[in-house]
């Protein structure tokens, strides 16, 4: 151990991260203490790391965080995640940010500050690459002097910010690649809630629990978009056809427009109300599509169904297909009509929410369309209190599947019931 250079010990301490462990390790000998002083680049105060944090008052926490940070020099990654703390007072928070200003590359902070601290103003901006803020307010964004030349990843959760400030913030980040917005409190000036965001460098976006009337997103380099639990009336995504991955889960959107869908490879929709013809028109040019998942989707028009002929013709490279939706009685055969096979589909996942006779027929029809299938996964929902009829259905389904799969001996079958 004596032969380890102090920088290497700094590397070890930085990987420890958790403040308590770092303090303990640095109390073992002089060299370790020096490593903590001068070669520590990561420090984390996380309420999950050390149970004793829960027993300390907010004031004591403020003191220990201050004292520990001030024992280091050149900290690059600072993480303060204290779930049980209501709020920290502004003075210590400002002290932590100012002390680390010159060297900070990553900041994670999730505690409310009172009075509110303008974190963007106080934290180091020159080298900051990752910023993850929760439970705070952002106001008065001014890109003329507040610039984040190195910021690549921005995550805002339960943040109060105006639509204008968010838009300005993005313009202040010329290298930004990842944006995550979770449950923001977006202040609007218009009577109609509109947000316009633009960034040519954004590659990945994650939006959760966002509620807006109108949202215009301009992202010429966007590759991946995930929307969860959002309510949007009008969502317009302007781009240059770089989008590869689209995931929409439990979202209500009346008008969805995605410009240039030619390079989409994965479309994953769940718990989503679709106006199928319109949506279909939007994705019909996605000839590179490899994975399509329509799970628990509801069609706006009751007579709409997904017809496999269209899917087979438009997505010849499809290798993974997952379908689960309400199978309307007379429409199953309609959906299965057509000569074109799904040549490349290797994995098929089919699910029911309410088991019925139609389901086995549907499975059979689909198997016929996938000549090169390797794996079939059946997803079922089985209620706790099963009526006699439900048991009978399940049994009858099981028998029919056993029978059916005899024809497809090379296909691996899996069942997932919940």
């Amino acid at each position, binding site marked *: 151990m004596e032969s380890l250079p102090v920088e290497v010990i700094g590397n*070890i301490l930085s990987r420890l991260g958790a403040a308590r462990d770092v303090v*303990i*390790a640095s*109390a073992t000998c002089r060299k370790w*203490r020096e490593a903590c002083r001068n070669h520590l680049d990561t420090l984390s105060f996380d309420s999950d790391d050390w149970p004793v944090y829960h027993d300390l008052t907010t004031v004591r926490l403020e003191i220990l965080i201050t004292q520990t940070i001030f024992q280091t020099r050149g900290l690059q990654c600072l993480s303060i995640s204290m779930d049980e703390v209501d709020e920290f007072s502004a003075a210590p928070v400002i002290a932590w940010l100012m002390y680390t200003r010159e060297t900070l590359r990553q900041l994670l902070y999730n505690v409310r500050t009172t009075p509110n601290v303008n974190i963007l103003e106080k934290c180091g901006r020159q080298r900051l690459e990752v910023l993850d803020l929760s439970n705070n307010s952002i106001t008065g964004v001014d890109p003329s002097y507040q610039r984040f030349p190195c910021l690549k990843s921005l995550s805002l959760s339960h943040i109060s910010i105006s639509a204008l400030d968010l838009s300005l913030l993005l313009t202040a980040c010329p290298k930004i690649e990842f944006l995550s917005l979770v449950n923001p409190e977006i202040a609007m000036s218009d009577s109609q809630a509109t947000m316009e965001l633009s960034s040519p460098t954004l590659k990945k976006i994650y939006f959760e629990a966002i509620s807006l009337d109108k949202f215009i997103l301009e992202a010429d380099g966007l590759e991946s978009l995930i929307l969860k639990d959002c309510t949007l009336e009008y969502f317009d995504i302007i781009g240059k056809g770089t989008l590869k991955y689209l995931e929409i889960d439990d979202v209500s959107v009346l008008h969805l427009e995605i410009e240039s869908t030619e390079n989409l490879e994965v479309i994953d929709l769940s718990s989503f109300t679709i106006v199928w013809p319109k949506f279909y028109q939007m994705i019909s040019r996605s000839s590179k599509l490899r994975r399509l998942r329509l799970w628990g989707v509801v069609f706006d028009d009751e007579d709409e169904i997904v017809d496999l002929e269209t899917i087979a013709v438009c997505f010849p490279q499809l290798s993974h297909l997952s379908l689960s939706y309400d199978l309307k009685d007379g429409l199953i055969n309609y959906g299965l009509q057509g000569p074109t096979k799904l040549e490349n589909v290797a994995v098929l996942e089919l699910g029911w929410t309410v088991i019925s006779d139609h389901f086995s027929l549907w499975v059979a029809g689909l198997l016929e369309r996938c000549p090169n299938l390797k794996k079939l996964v059946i997803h079922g929902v089985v209620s706790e209190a099963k009526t006699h009829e439900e048991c009978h259905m399940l049994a009858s389904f099981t028998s029919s599947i056993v029978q059916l799969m005899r024809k497809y001996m090379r296909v691996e079958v899996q069942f997932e019931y919940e």
Partner: protein
Amino acid sequence: MSMISGDKSSTEILSLKSSDNEIFEVKKEVVLESITLRGMVEEDEFSDTLIPLPNVEGKILSKIIHYCQKHTEARAKVNGSEGAADSKEIKDFDSEFINVDDKTLLGIILAANYLNIKDLLDLGCQKIADNIKEKSVEDVRKTFNIKNDFTPEEEKAIREENLWAFD
């Protein structure tokens, strides 16, 4: 000692000599995983002679070469096909590889530091960090054979300053 010279540098074989005079013949591309060795190879004409590594003993050098070989292969695979599958394979290899006794672990870290093989150094440091987590000061000292060179006054001052961590 045999030397195979090929058209491409990747088939060229170099010889490394450990501190205890063990000789290892290694493909040049694997040797280049070490930034230190890369510098040596590019500056001087080592392709005809042995590269002596007086700081690294044979047992450790053998392990390091194995690590570099595996990672060179994995990287070649990623450039070909499915990157994700190999990422798990490499992760499994790494955790298996670093699961060694403390003495060997320290040897690997020292060698990786001297040879400047970043990924291996980080892997070793992370392992030590994992072994320190949640231990008391005395336990850390015992586990890693660290001599307490603080005076009693210094130790008291450190404790007082960070009382919260010691309970």
